[in-house]
């Protein structure tokens, strides 16, 4: 019974890869894989169609990196606070709210971003419009923080208390104990948490579709509009004539996304296992 349940999930993952591969395969012969390395993504055009994945990958990377730059300090410090410093009463108050933040539907957060965050970013940086990578990154950080905080907090809590007690017994202050003993010991768990956060951020669709402006350009400026891989699939999949080159190109976008998140997850599992004392 249990073996069957586990086998089913392996089977489904395998079938997803198979299905994606089957739908994307014709692209290899017809326009050729080299077209995916183009610098432009213009799938619908009277002039010439471009199916370059580079702008989309750059958009996803920019938004993800910026989101993690915001998320990691907030989450790690937050997790340390909740696990080590907070009084029990504060802990009881903070944890439910973090859970609530995690459970808000992403499209609601996207709406919040459109109506509240975008004008804020526009005013703060004196821009012409608030639809850019920065707004998207802020929203994604809001979504990733609960995930990273919870798992980091688990990692910190599971550091054996003997370590802390030994450190305190040797005369270290609480702060020194936290930064020199507890956090390094919990580091593998924290790294795994960050990687899972990245996985969550990379796969986010609705929020980025609504606030990033969706311009397919290769840029590393956070105040510029970008187009992510996920938003591209969401926006264009409904339209494409079934089986056309555009359709196949979109499946290649899906394959890239799937491979990235798969690798991230495998890596996170490896890290957790290698320093396996914790989990």
């Amino acid at each position: 019974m249990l073996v069957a349940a586990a086998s089913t999930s392996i089977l489904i993952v395998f079938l997803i890869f198979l299905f994606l591969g089957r739908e994307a395969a014709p692209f290899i012969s017809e326009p050729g894989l080299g077209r995916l390395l183009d610098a432009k993504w213009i799938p619908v055009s009277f002039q010439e169609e471009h199916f370059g994945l580079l702008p989309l990958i750059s958009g996803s990377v920019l938004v993800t990196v910026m989101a993690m730059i915001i998320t990691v300090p907030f989450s790690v410090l937050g997790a340390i606070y909740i696990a080590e410093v907070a009084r029990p009463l504060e802990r009881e108050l903070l944890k439910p709210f973090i859970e609530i933040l995690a459970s808000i539907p992403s499209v609601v957060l996207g709406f919040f971003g459109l109506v509240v965050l975008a004008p804020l970013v526009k005013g703060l940086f004196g821009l012409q419009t608030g639809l850019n990578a920065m707004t998207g990154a802020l929203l994604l950080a809001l979504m990733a923080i609960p995930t990273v905080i919870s798992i980091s907090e688990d990692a910190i809590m599971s550091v054996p208390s003997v370590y802390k007690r030994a450190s305190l017994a040797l005369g270290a202050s609480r702060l020194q104990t936290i930064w020199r003993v507890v956090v390094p010991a919990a580091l593998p768990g924290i790294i795994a948490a960050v990687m899972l956060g990245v996985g969550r951020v990379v796969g986010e669709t609705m929020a980025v579709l609504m606030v990033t402006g969706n311009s397919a350009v290769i840029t590393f400026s956070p105040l510029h509009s970008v187009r992510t891989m996920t938003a591209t699939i969401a926006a264009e999949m409904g339209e494409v004539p079934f089986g056309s080159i555009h359709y196949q190109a979109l499946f290649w976008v899906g394959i890239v996304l799937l491979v990235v998140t798969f690798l991230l997850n495998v890596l996170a599992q490896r890290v957790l296992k290698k320093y396996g004392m914790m989990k």
Partner: protein
Amino acid sequence: MRKIFFFLTGLLAVALVGGCGSGDRDTGVDTGSSAGTEARYLTIKGSDTMVHLVSTWAEDFMASRPESEISVTGGGSGTGIAALINGTTDICAASRSIKEQERKLATDNGKNPVEIAVARDGIAVIVNQANPVSELSIDQIGGIFSGTVTNWQEVGGPDQPIIVLSRESSSGTFIFFQEHVLNKADYTQQARFLPGTSAVVQAVNADRGAIGYVGLGFATQKGVGGIKVLSVKPDQASPAVAPSEETVRSGTYAIARPLFLYTSNEPSGLVKEFIDYCLGPDGQEIVRDTGYVSVQ
């Protein structure tokens, strides 16, 4: 025990893979091709520009024929045509005409698309209310959207960069605008692509340097605040014409287009009844009420 469960899992795998084959994608809805059978359900998918109009038609139609049920969805003209090709809709609403490659895909799939013009629409070019510019020529608009013109100064406005807003490529409005105003040039890489008409209106409302395009019905109908509709000059010498019902029907407004309903084959049964209703006096009255222009 384990062997049995592995066997069952294998069986499940075979069943799943077998079911994945591209079988007949018919909805099973009788489109009325067999004479005498009254179909009770009707699906209409397609243009976002037309979705309000088609919904109003559907509601009125269902009120007078209580045994019928019509479902209306948007998603863009491209979505509707794709659904028509795949056989997942009876009628497709499109704000552009079907492309040659789409027509070929349809006939390959055994469908023969029939085009019926049911209304006319103007595309309004909108700017923020605070923008002093109130008229532009088609060439200037084309230059702005294709990226050759980047500052409002170049077209008689203040010194401010132009924020170009567009619909996504699944929109019929996108295709029509590209074909007739941009003269088939690509949209500028700096343009921001928004997922729907209301998103475009909202963004123009919020940003002073923004310019976008929407169907006339959306721009004028609800009295949306914060935006201004530009008058369009067909060329530099001619006078500017503001979009309205009269100018669209008479053809003096330069950016106007017919709105279509497509069916898989010659309409019959409930599909034909619905289309006759849309072209009739009641249907065309609704066209006028929702801010479009009637074909009669």
